[in-house]
């Protein structure tokens, strides 16, 4: 199985008045064709920045992103335009990511106009209707405006728009976090059906660990810009290694009575990502922190095949 997209030491820093903000720091990931990589972490850990960097909505500071074997950061204008057709994004907030002054049909047709894939307006209209059918939007919404629709239907527009150019890869940035549970389940089912039909690869960004388990084959846990653990989904939930992953799993409220009693609630909060101190970034909150944790960069250890963790406990 070939990797559709992979990165090597990907970094994205932002300059701020008080120093360098390490939003994404040295990320190595790979996503095979037709598979889903879940990216989990708390707010401010760089998940969205990673999603944007990987499809070059923003340029990387350092490191490489390979798409079908080519480095996307070296693409010229023409190559980049072609890449845009292959890689799309679904945004978090279905309220602010679509233009309120465009009708549903115009929104879904826009990528085809921009990338000149369907030049004939009749053919385009046909394609829009087809896409609306695929994502489950009734034809009567063809000329509707976004404000007439609820959150779930708006997110369906976002999905239809992302599919308009037949991409191979979609970055889904918290696509269901603004939706109610019953609507969330409808969108998750839709995304999984589409993946099966079209062999799509997803990078699924979320903070919800039950959602990510449901949809992903592989999961990456991020903390302050760094990947701290990466593994196949089932392995990660059965055998979490990093203390942060364990704490994260412990913190999920489970809808069962008496589901758990012993709880390891981690103390403190996420530190600032501006000019982080060397060593493990989780150390200030970690119950197992040792002096070694703060000495230099933490190496990534492959504990078992495909299960990598960055923690001194496993040296």
């Amino acid at each position, binding site marked *: 199985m070939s990797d559709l997209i992979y990165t090597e030491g990907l970094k994205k820093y932002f300059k701020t008045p008080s120093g360098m903000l390490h939003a994404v720091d040295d990320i190595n990931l790979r996503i095979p064709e037709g598979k889903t990589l879940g990216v989990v972490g708390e707010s401010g850990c760089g998940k969205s920045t990673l999603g944007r960097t990987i499809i070059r909505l923003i340029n990387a500071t350092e490191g490489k992103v390979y798409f079908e074997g080519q480095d996307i950061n070296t693409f010229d204008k023409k190559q980049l335009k072609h890449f845009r057709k292959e890689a799309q994004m679904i945004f978090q907030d279905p309220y602010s990511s679509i233009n309120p002054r465009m009708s549903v049909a115009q929104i879904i047709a826009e990528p085809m106009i921009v990338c000149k894939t369907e030049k004939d307006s009749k053919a385009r209209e046909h394609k829009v209707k087809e896409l609306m059918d695929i994502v489950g939007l009734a034809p009567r919404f063809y000329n509707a405006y976004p404000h007439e629709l609820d959150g779930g239907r708006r997110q369906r527009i976002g999905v239809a728009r992302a599919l308009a150019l037949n991409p191979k890869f979609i970055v889904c940035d918290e696509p269901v976090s603004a939706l109610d*549970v*019953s609507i969330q389940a409808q969108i998750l089912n839709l995304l999984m059906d589409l993946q099966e039909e079209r062999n799509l690869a997803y990078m699924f960004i979320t903070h919800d660990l039950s959602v990510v*388990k449901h949809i992903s084959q592989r999961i990456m846990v991020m903390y302050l810009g760094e990947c701290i653990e990466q593994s196949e989904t089932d392995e990660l939930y059965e055998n979490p290694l990093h203390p942060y992953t364990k704490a994260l799993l412990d913190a*999920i*409220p489970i809808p069962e009575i008496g*589901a758990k009693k012993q709880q390891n609630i981690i103390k403190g*909060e*996420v530190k600032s990502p501006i000019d982080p101190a060397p060593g493990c970034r989780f150390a200030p909150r970690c119950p197992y922190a040792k002096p070694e944790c703060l000495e230099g960069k933490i190496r990534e250890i492959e504990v078992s095949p495909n299960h990598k963790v960055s923690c001194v406990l496993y040296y």
Partner: protein
Amino acid sequence: MDDEKLLDIRGLYTQYDTDDDVVYAVNNLSLSLSKGRTLGLVGETGAGKTTTCLSILRLLPDKIGKITAGEIYFDGKNLIDLHEEDMRQIRGNDIAMIFQDPLSSLNPVYTVGMQIGEALKYHGIYKNEKEIDKRVEEMLELVGLPKERKNDYPHQFSGGMKQRVVIAMALACEPKLLLADEPTTALDVTIQAQVLKLMNDLKEHLNTSMILVTHDLGIVAETCEDVAVMYAGSIIEKGSAEDIFNGENHHPYTVGLFASIPNLKVKTRRLKPIDGLMPDPANLPKGCTFSPRCPHCMDICKTEEPPCVMMGGEHMIKCHLFTSK
């Protein structure tokens, strides 16, 4: 009225009059809460959860929102009959509310110490500044913040810390009833776990009753003794947490709600969401409000409002399916 009951809402109707429509936000809602208990009020966006809380405190938007029928007994008094002046004495003092968004419920131009002290000063519990100051420091420490930070402004705190400040504000007067409207929705999971634990500890410590409004069934399972499920402005099922999570019989909406959450333990290929959407509260369907989405819909459901069927103990289901049994 039962002495044990701190809050008893009977047949509450609340509506909002907008320019075009009348929005029926709460319809025939009855609810009671005993002292020292926590009730989880569960439902999706637009179910009327927040409106219920605002109705209790009579904080509905002026001229637009109004209570059209029903009684709200708190500690034996009907809050609906009270004068605005008397109501003010209750707000913040006997009943306090924690709002959903900690960012917008704090005033950015006052220090957090002043904001915590405001209710104390207003309700005249402590007479002089020194006493108030001491109490503010006490409250900050109670919620796990260093007391030196009372002179800081809200922007100097993180989201989780701001929510702690809001909790300190709500608890400063030791209210008998705490209304917590999605107190952890804006927070990350690890911070959410901290805040929930804090609220649980404080509730036990102060023996406060609490209504916890949430859409997260996981939080309910962890913190609530009683549960009420809301749909389109009415309670469609209520009972002890045991009844709702482990009971045999459920309202079809409750079943759908549970089937929509991905389960961490059981692997399912597809989720089974409820088809369709919540009805428009300005245009509610006749009969049972859930009937258009219900997989077990019968003819009677489309015409008649279902009765509240008692399933044994405190467990109530508002559904025609159970009337014959």
